[in-house]
């Protein structure tokens, strides 16, 4: 790597393990949660975030020093970290909580991320310049983490990004973001938080050589207390229920029968 006058950039990509989007969600019989004994994978918006970080490096080459992913989750969250490393991220952090713990809320996640970012700057001498994360996780659909993180850090934020142009030497970013009925272009100085929208890119497959390499990439394991964080939720889930079932329709044999049924149901010709 060639040293350049400007300090090289470090990117952090927070990722979450969620139920795969192709799985049909079922509420458990006690109505306290959903059946989690199903296939999981990386939250699709986070996958887009990982892809974007890798593309930025492909575009900006040596200007990007590191891409680190972090997942705050139960033991199996290590699987999505491996996936991200196989896609091309350099290293990972796994902030692990037990399977039995309730899933943390966005505020606690944002605080954990803030603690990691401070730790990277102080202890690792690798200050984070850019956080790219999904605009929302498809399990609880909260859509708050990126915004809260930017607020806690006092950084600029560009949410729902559909295009990111990084000026590595100028340490700034031009971001096109999706807004109601159109898009807007934002420019901001790094450090910055960017949340990804669907149109930003299409994530790649993990190639076999990269999967093999990923096995040797470092993953640091931390507990919330290592970071001085309490993940206990502030809210209590009282009840989860499925949408009301639609009543089954009936087939009619003839147009006449259909008209009769409609009349019966109170429909009148206009």
């Amino acid at each position: 790597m060639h040293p350049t006058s400007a300090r090289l950039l470090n990117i952090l990509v927070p990722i979450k393990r969620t139920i795969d989007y192709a799985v049909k969600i079922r509420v458990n019989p006690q109505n306290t949660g959903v059946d989690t004994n199903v296939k999981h994978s990386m939250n699709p918006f986070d996958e887009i975030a990982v892809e974007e970080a890798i593309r930025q490096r492909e575009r900006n080459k040596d200007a990007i020093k590191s891409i680190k992913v972090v997942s705050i989750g139960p033991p199996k969250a290590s699987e999505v970290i491996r996936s991200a490393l196989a896609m091309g991220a350099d290293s990972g952090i796994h902030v692990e909580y037990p399977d039995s713990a309730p899933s943390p809320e966005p505020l606690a996640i944002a605080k954990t991320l803030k603690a990691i970012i401070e730790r990277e700057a102080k202890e690792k001498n690798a200050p984070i310049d850019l956080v790219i994360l999904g605009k929302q996780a498809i399990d609880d659909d909260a859509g708050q983490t990126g915004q809260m993180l930017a607020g806690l850090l006092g950084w600029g934020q560009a949410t729902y990004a559909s295009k990111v142009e990084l000026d590595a030497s100028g340490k700034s970013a031009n971001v096109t973001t999706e807004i109601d009925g159109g898009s807007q272009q934002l420019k901001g100085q790094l450090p910055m938080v960017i949340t990804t929208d669907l149109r930003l890119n299409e994530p790649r497959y993990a190639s076999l050589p990269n999967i093999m390499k990923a096995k040797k990439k470092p993953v640091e394991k931390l507990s919330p207390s290592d970071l001085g964080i309490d993940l206990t939720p502030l809210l209590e889930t009282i009840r989860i229920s499925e949408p009301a079932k639609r009543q089954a329709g009936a087939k009619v044999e003839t147009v006449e029968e259909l008209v009769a049924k409609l009349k019966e149901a109170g429909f009148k010709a206009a």
Partner: protein
Amino acid sequence: MYTITRASRRFPRRNLLPKLYARSLTSLTSSDLDHFASFLPRTSIISTMAPFSDGPEAIAQYNADWMGKYQGRATTVLRPRTTEEVSKIVRHCNERGIGLVPQGGNTGLVGGSVPVGDEVVLSLGNMSKVRSFDPVSGILVADAGCVLESLSDYLQPHAHLMPLDLGAKGSCQIGGNVATNAGGLRLLRYGSLHGSVLGLEVVLPSGQILNALTTLRKDNTGYDLKQLFIGSEGTLGVITGVSILTPPIPRASNNVILALPRFENVLPLFGEVKARLGEILSAFEWLDRGSYDLAVKHGQGRALSEDEVEGAACFVLVETSGGRGEHDEEKLTDLLEFLLSADTPLINTGVLAQSPAQFSSLWALREGVTEAVSKEGKAYKYDISIPLSKFEEVVNMTKERLKNVEGVLGVIGYGHVGDGNLHLNIIASSYTPTIASLLEPWLYEHVSSLNGSISAEHGIGAMKTHALKYSKDEVSIEWMRKIKEMFDPKGIMNPGKVLLPREGNVMGEGEKEGSGTARAQE
């Protein structure tokens, strides 16, 4: 709603009977329609004939095959809801000598599912109920008209799956699958329908109902009649119910696409994969570079990145299914590590699905080839069984033979390597006699010289009746005929398919060899 037209007048009957018919067959008249209307509801009859006089558009889809290659002239489609209704229809047609074409999802690729003339189409689409499922034994009993994919969906909450899967799953019916003895993408793992079908309910040409719908794994009580109907392509009777053994859904499945520098590596790769994956190997599918490029061009699944594709002569899709994810992954990783680190690697590189979405996307690249071909142009489809080592040679010989021939857009090969089944597709801007005559009988003769089969899984249909002799000897064909005549003495069931009537029992002039009912050849 139906528009009233006099379309039926535009279809002069009787004199249009095709030459492939047995003498005894006759056309449907309005009094036959009256008879059907006496026990079928209006919604079960579509007919361009009076008194129904439905518009031609109502019947068009039943007359055209999936490839747009074969065109029937049926005036009437019947859509019964019960086995009894099927029986009444067939009995009447047999008495009157009216030809019948059983039709499932109409996805067949050999012109078997559309009439060659004006036979009545008997569509099973209204018979689509699951009759029973036993989650302990995994035995499913269903109406023949159930769509394959809807059966998979039905089984999913019970953690079972259909033992067969194919690209046409969204439209094809289990009855059609049985009638064609469809192979597909899971054959390597779960075997053929001759093994997994446990029983059938069939309406025989006489109208009799053959109830062999057992749910027994073992039943050695004489001749196993149901086997005759598996792969009979609608020529011996109408399948109305199917009892089939379904396996539990594997807890874990993975897939990879491997990029190979040359075809010669496929065979040694298959050896390694089989040896190292053992019981978790569930599919091994091959596609040449042309097939891959076509699938990508027509948006079937997400493409691999350019550097992964660079220098690849062909691709192999490997699927694993097993009971424990960690165990399977370990085996798969060992295999991949071996493949990547070998001194002379068999593969360039490859990709491993990281999520169910990617798993589907990789499969789409292989499954989507059939559809991509149909988007690209008109296809001559050859579905042959030959020794694996000859796959590429046959594709190359075909390319060479069709070089600079007008209208030929491409020649591609893909298929179920694990089963020795090559799909050879010639894509053209239109069906022409020149292309047809370059391909046949040349290709069939070549397959025959390799002791292969001219139809590995699609069947004979109308496309290959004349070519049966390349894969079956005279004695076999004679006994097939005897069986056909015994079940169906009047030849009403799917006439002109699989076997042609004996000479002398043909209406009109005998046809020349090689001429099917393909439009271009008419």
